[in-house]
Structure formats: structure tokens, C-alpha cells
């Protein structure tokens, strides 16, 4: 048992976590080195690929966040895209303010979309986003607060199972509609785009892209460690207890709603960080990230990778997105067939996902895997 150390240090005594970190760091180092090779070298990895991988890493962090609430707490959130997008918008607003007077209208204060829609001043909620400190805090706070309020209401009233899933979906759907509205002042359907620089670094420079890739990797590693630390603590075991027998846990004297709220908020903030790192790499944030289908897709990554393992979520996110990138290029008309079939086959044939396939034998304290216990979703 490794519960003697500081709670944040506990994951370091787990072999699987260390292996994961080593693999992640190793692969990233390889990519970075390969990118630094001269462009005509056969092993050169183009910046395009690096950015693409950076995007995958953001998705992987997002998947880890979803796995934390779904795999360990049993809350199937169909609205995690909302937290991801809120983090992304916070970052996008900062990047927008950084454009300054380099927009097409040259307005030093207002973003272009506000100029041509005749806004005469910056809405109050845009204030402060020119300061990186404020903006980065909002990356955590915006999704965190939303999760806090929403979770407080939902968990207090013991909304569970399918009901919770559906109202998380309603949440992200409502936000999507709201952000589509141009009156909201977030650029409507077009969202925020045409970013120039981040913390003074030119976003189109190769070195910045490499930096963002590394930052995404580091964020993934840290996020993974934080989740791991939570999962292996007694709190993590309470979560599993809540997942498998919620009312039993309550009768043991745990205030289940607080545990749910805590983990939900942490997960939302991680998703926000993922969104914030995602935006400068893809160059746009718009309301389609709030789309319920995107949130479902995230859940599918986790299911495909294997729930309640955390690293399974990472594998799932990387695998699906890589497949998507490849298929949309080589079989543009038919890739949805492949993707759809993949989801069906994995769910039916691989209930434990890829991770389950990789290691059939698992120590129970490493990853509680008995998911079929809780039947609460069949009311």
C-alpha cells in the first residue's frame, strides 16, 4: 500500500503511472527531436504533424477529465464539451485581445467582429482578458464555476444516471445556442479566430507550435498525475463506492454530493485547460465545440480506450482522432462508416475498451473495473 506519502506524490510509487509518464515523455521527446531535424531529413516530422499531435494531446487530456467523472464516479457527462469550450473561449478572448490594432479594421480595442457589428465599446466580460493572468485564471474559473453551480444543483437534488446525462446534454446544447447568438458578444457562429500571438510569441512560428505541443504534453502529464492522485486516495475509493452503490455510501456517512461536486469541478477545470491549449493550436474556437455530438464523441473515445483506467482514455482519444485524420483524407466519403462501425464493435466486443484488451489481468486496487454493478440507469 502506498498511502503513506503526501497525496499528490502517491502516483509516483505506481509502476503503471510511471510507465505512462515515461512513454509520454519519450514519445514527445522523439517528436520534438524529429521536428528539429532538417526538413529534408527522412525522419523529419513536419510542424503540421506536431500541431496535429498537440491537438490530440489536448483531446487526450479532455478524455482523462471525462474518465475521471465517468469511470470513477459513474457520472456520464454528455456535456463535457461545454467545459472544454469555455476554457477555449477564455483563451480565445485573450488571444483576441492580443491582436490589438492588427485586425482588419485596425481598431486598437475592439475585435473585428465587434467593429462590423457596430459595438461601440467592449462588453464588461471582455475586460481584463488582455492580461494573461486574468485570462488563464478564467480558463480554470469559467468551467469550474459552471460545473460548481450546475453540479451543486444537480447533485443536491440527487439527479443521477440517465437524467443527469440528459441534463448535461441540455446544458451544453443551451450554451451552444447561446454562443451562436451574436448578441452574446463572442463572435456568434464565426467564433474567435485570426489569432496572432500568445504571450508575445508569434502563433504561426514553428517554435511556438512546438512549444504549444510540449505544453499540451506537460498539461496532459500533470492532469493525469492529478487524476491519478485523486483516484488512488481514499477519496478515489469513495468515488468508486458512490459509483457502485450511491445510497450505501451515504448511509456510511459520506456526503456523496460533495464528493461528486469536487470531482466534477476538478474534471471541468481539466477540460477547460485542454480547451485553452487546443485553441491556439487549431486557430479557432466557435460554438460548434459546444455541440452535444462532440460531447458524445468524447465519451466514445473514453469507452473505446477503456474506462476507469485514465490511460485508456488517452489511448482512446489518440486512436479515434488519428483514425479520423487518416480516414477523412484517404476515404472521405466512407469514413463515417468506419467510425460508426468502430464504435459499435468496440462497445459490443470490447466492453473494457482497448485498455481491457491490453491487460486482461488487472490488480483491483489499480483500476476497479467492474462497471456492470450499478444498475441505477435502468429506472
Amino acid at each position: 500500500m502506498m498511502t503513506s506519502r503526501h497525496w499528490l506524490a502517491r502516483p509516483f510509487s505506481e509502476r503503471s503511472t510511471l510507465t505512462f509518464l515515461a512513454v509520454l515523455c519519450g514519445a514527445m521527446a522523439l517528436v520534438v527531436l524529429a521536428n528539429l531535424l532538417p526538413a529534408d531529413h527522412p525522419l523529419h516530422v513536419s510542424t503540421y504533424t506536431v500541431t496535429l499531435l498537440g491537438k490530440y494531446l489536448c483531446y487526450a487530456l479532455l478524455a482523462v477529465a471525462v474518465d475521471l467523472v465517468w469511470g470513477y464516479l459513474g457520472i456520464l457527462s454528455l456535456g463535457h464539451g461545454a467545459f472544454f469550450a469555455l476554457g477555449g473561449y477564455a483563451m480565445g478572448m485573450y488571444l483576441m485581445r492580443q491582436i490589438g490594432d492588427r485586425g482588419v479594421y485596425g481598431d486598437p480595442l475592439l475585435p473585428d467582429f465587434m467593429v462590423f457589428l457596430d459595438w461601440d465599446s467592449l462588453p464588461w466580460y471582455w475586460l481584463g482578458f488582455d492580461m494573461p493572468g486574468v485570462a488563464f485564471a478564467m480558463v480554470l474559473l469559467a468551467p469550474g464555476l459552471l460545473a460548481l453551480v450546475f453540479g451543486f444543483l444537480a447533485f443536491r437534488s440527487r439527479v443521477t444516471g440517465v437524467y443527469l446525462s440528459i441534463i448535461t446534454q441540455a446544458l451544453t446544447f443551451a450554451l451552444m445556442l447561446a454562443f451562436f447568438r451574436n448578441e452574446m458578444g463572442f463572435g456568434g457562429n464565426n467564433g474567435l479566430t485570426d489569432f496572432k500571438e500568445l504571450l508575445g510569441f508569434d502563433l504561426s512560428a514553428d517554435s511556438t507550435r512546438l512549444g504549444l505541443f510540449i505544453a499540451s504534453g506537460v498539461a496532459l502529464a500533470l492532469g493525469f498525475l492529478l487524476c491519478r492522485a485523486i483516484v488512488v486516495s481514499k477519496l478515489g475509493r469513495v468515488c468508486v463506492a458512490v459509483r457502485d452503490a450511491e445510497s450505501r455510501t451515504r448511509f456510511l456517512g459520506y456526503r456523496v454530493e460533495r464528493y461528486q461536486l469536487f470531482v466534477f469541478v476538478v474534471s471541468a477545470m481539466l477540460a477547460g485547460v485542454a480547451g485553452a491549449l487546443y485553441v491556439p493550436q487549431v486557430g479557432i474556437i466557435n460554438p460548434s465545440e459546444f455541440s452535444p455530438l462532440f460531447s458524445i464523441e468524447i465519451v466514445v473515445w473514453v469507452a473505446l480506450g477503456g474506462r476507469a483506467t485514465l490511460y485508456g482514455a488517452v489511448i482512446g482519444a489518440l486512436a479515434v482522432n488519428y483514425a479520423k485524420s487518416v480516414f477523412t483524407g484517404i476515404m472521405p466519403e466512407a469514413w463515417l462508416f468506419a467510425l460508426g462501425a468502430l464504435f459499435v464493435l468496440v462497445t459490443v466486443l470490447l466492453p473494457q475498451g482497448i485498455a481491457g484488451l491490453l491487460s486482461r489481468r488487472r490488480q483491483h486496487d489499480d483500476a476497479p473495473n467492474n462497471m456492470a454493478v450499478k444498475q441505477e440507469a435502468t429506472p
Partner: protein
Amino acid sequence: MNTTAWRYWLKALLLVSLVALGPCALGQDNAAEQDTSATLEEDAGRELLQALAEANFREKEAAIDAIAASGDTRARGWLESFAEGKLAQVKDSGDIVVILANRGRQWPVADALTMEEAGEVSRRELDRVAINNRLRGHLDSTLALLDLRVDDPAQRLIAAKALLGDVDTEVVESLSELAQNESDPEVAAALTQAIAIHRLEQGDSAAVADLAGSLNGQVRAALMQASRSEDAMVADAASAALADIEQSLKLNRAAETLYFGLSLGSVLVLAAIGLAITFGVMGVINMAHGELIMLGAYTTWAMQQLLPGQPGLALLLAIPAGFLVAALVGVAIERGVIQFLKGRPLETLLATFGVSLILQQLVRTLISPLNRTVVTPEWMSGSLIINDALSLTLNRLYVLGFAVLVFAALMLVMRRTRLGLEVRAVTQNRAMARSMGIRATRVDILTFALGSGVAGLAGVALSQLTNVGPNLGQNYIIDSFMVVVFGGVGNLWGTLVAGLSLGVINQVLEPWAGAVLAKILVLVFIILFIQKRPRGLFPQKGRAAEG
């Protein structure tokens, strides 16, 4: 000015000829008997048509009047073809033809003078006789003037109403004459109103008396215009009449909003009720539900392709066909996917999400990524007119009725049949039901088929309201889930009440908040409502529900 004067005379001539020829001169009913006396010389007809074809838009009105005034029995046919944009001139010969079908490269035509089929002509050889809205309006009132003299009072009424707001000085006198001789009181009233509008326009404040209390849009428009008049007497009289009308309009508008709400609600109920069965009864979260709806809609399209020219029959046949197609696909989904996921309800969500992607792309690949045209049959087009201010759109009225029927049928199935009993038994306690000899697997298949089939029915109905395309299902899946959850999972009544009330709430909010905000507010309302009642409007009761 010159042309206006000319038009004036032509119109006068037309009216004189109408009066002279008596009530049936140009009326289509009796036209054939009179053909010897009313058919022009070949050349004259040709000239009239060519004048029409070669005139520019401003000159065409005169050409129309000339044709109408010619007294030729074919005039109405020509003008109607013209109104439909089917009149064309062959480039080389200058012949005027009627286009019979205008798809593809070669178009079949008929000679406009003889109405004999004249074979196919390349579309490159044809110059269409162009028409625009102004001409169409002019044609309408010209034809309406003709129609005022037919025998059928219903047709006369339509014609009289069409004249509201379209009366001008040239015709007013003869109209007054017609109104006095009119035997049907409704037609007479409509004519009086039409004339009163004209009088009001001329500044006659006494005309207001003839218009007071009418809910007709044209009347109101005329009054509003008059209320802005510089003549204080006219303005005051019109304003007073308007205030009265506004009062009764309010009531009508409230009724209209309620109808809109119920109609939207019925769509939601239809879309959700199948889900209420598969999701509520079986606990399967079927993300492909939307695609089953889509299949129902495509079935309607396919039926209409199979039975060209009979959209109504095709639609009726599509009801069983849509049910079957969706039910069969549903069975395939149940056997192929869902049966392996017993006891893992949340995972059915993932697998069926995959299924929905496949079905969507299948339709895109096999049929087309483009929307398909589903024709609304004649008997479903237009409105049921309650009064001048309140009319219920027929297609939505049918859908509303259909939703009620489907719901009633489902309740019957669940309450009165063996299947319903077994379904309820399996829902309550699977193991117990099985031990009592109920074949749970069979019940599962039948339940899923039933739920899917109902989704197909929803698709048939939706094909009359919205796009039939690969994205059809996606637009309804989230709403459907909201309705089911709001109503309370596993409760069909809940779904009905939830769907209708969400529809009404949405429509009441919409004029006030706008479409987007209304939708957002409804979603927020659902989220908050679920906090208050975590198991929906009508929660399942008892120990079984506690889980």
C-alpha cells in the same frame, strides 16, 4: 401617362364586353357551348399572344387586358399558362407554345392556339414568356373579375375576396352593380367591403362603417392606411374601427399561439414517443432514434417516387410502410447490437451512436446528401379557415391529429394487449416476468420494434413539415430526450404532457424572447425542473423505481 390611359380604356372595354356577354361568357363552365361565337380568328389569337411574348414587363399588362378583352374562349387557358410560366415562344418560328414538362434537355410542348401536342423541342430553342409578381397580381384580379360571373357562389366568394384592396376607379361602378345584384349574402358582403376599401382610399369616411368589425387583413391594412390620413375625420373613424378590430384580434392571436404551441408539441410528442418506449420501457438509450425517424421520412419519399402523381395515396401507404421499415431496422439494431449490451444501458448510447453515424452516411451514399422533395398532397395544403384572422394550417392540423391517434393506439397496445402486459411485466421485474413464462427476449424485440416503428411514423409526419435529408434525425434527437426526461422516463402520459407543454411554452415565449432565446429558456427550464423533480413530471412510483 399615355399607357395608363390606354389601359383604362382597355379595362373599360373588357368590362363592357363582360357585361354584354352575360354571366357565362368567359366562365369556364359554359365556355365550350359558346365557342363559335367567341373564338378569334387564328391570326388574331396569334397576334395577341405574340404581343404578349414580345412586350416588356410594363407593356405586358396591356397585352393581358387585350387577351382578356378579346372574348376568346381560350383566353383563360392562355392566361393561366402564362401565370404558370408555361408559355414560350419558339425562337426560329415565333410560334407560341405551351410547355408541358420542363425537366431535362428536351421539353414536350403543345401549340398554344390549337392546344395540340407539338412534340419535343430543345430547351435551347425556346424563349419563355416571362412573368413577374406584378403581372401575376394583375392577372389574378383580371381573372377574379371574370370569376365574379360564374354560377358557383363559392368561386364567386373567392373571387370577391381576391378583389379586396385591388379595386380601382375603372371597375368600381360595375362592381357596385354586381354587388347589388348579387344573390349570395357572403359574396355581396365581400364585394361591399372591397368597394368600401376603395371608397376609403378615396377619402370617404362613411366607408368605415362597411369595414368595421372585419378581421380581414386587407381591410385592416386599408384602415391602417386611412388612420394615417391627413383628413382628420377619416383618420379618426379608421382609428376607432381599428381599435375595435384589435380587441377581437387579441383573442384570435392567443388562440393562434395556443395552436402553434400544440402543433409544435405534437411534433415533439411524435418524435419522442418512440423513444419513451425504447428508452423508458427498455432502458435503452437509442441515439439512432433520430435516424429511425429519418428512415420513416425517406420511406414517404420513396412511396411518392413509386406512385408518381398520387402524393396523397403515397402518404397514406407510407404510414404502414414507414412503420415497417423503421421497425425492421429497429429489430436489426436490437438483434445486432443491443441484445449484447443487456444491463449496460449507458453503453447502448455509445453503440447506437455508431449506428446512427452509419445510417446517416448510408442514406448519403445510397440516396443523396441532398434533401429530397416530399410533396404535400392537395388535401393537406393550405389552412382551415376559422375566421379571417384565425386559420389553422392543415398540414400541422393533420400532424396534430396523427400524433393523438398514434398516442391513443400506443396506449391501447400497452393497456389492452398481451404484448403491453408483458412489456410492463418485464419493465417492472425482469427476472420475475421470466420466471412466469414470459419470453423476455421476444418482448425485447417486439418492444424495440414497436418503439422504432413509432419513430418511423414520426418520420412520415415530419416529412410534411420539414426537410427530408440525412440530417433530419439529428435535429430531433436531443429534443426527444428532453421531452422523455421531462415527462418522466417510462411514462407515456408524461411524454404526452411534456411534449405538448414544452411546445406551448416555447411558442408563448417566442414572440417575446425570439426563437433562439425561447429555446435556451426552455432548456434552462428543463434543467431547473429536473433539480426540483429529479425523475420528471410523472416519476415511476414505488420500490422498483428506487434502483
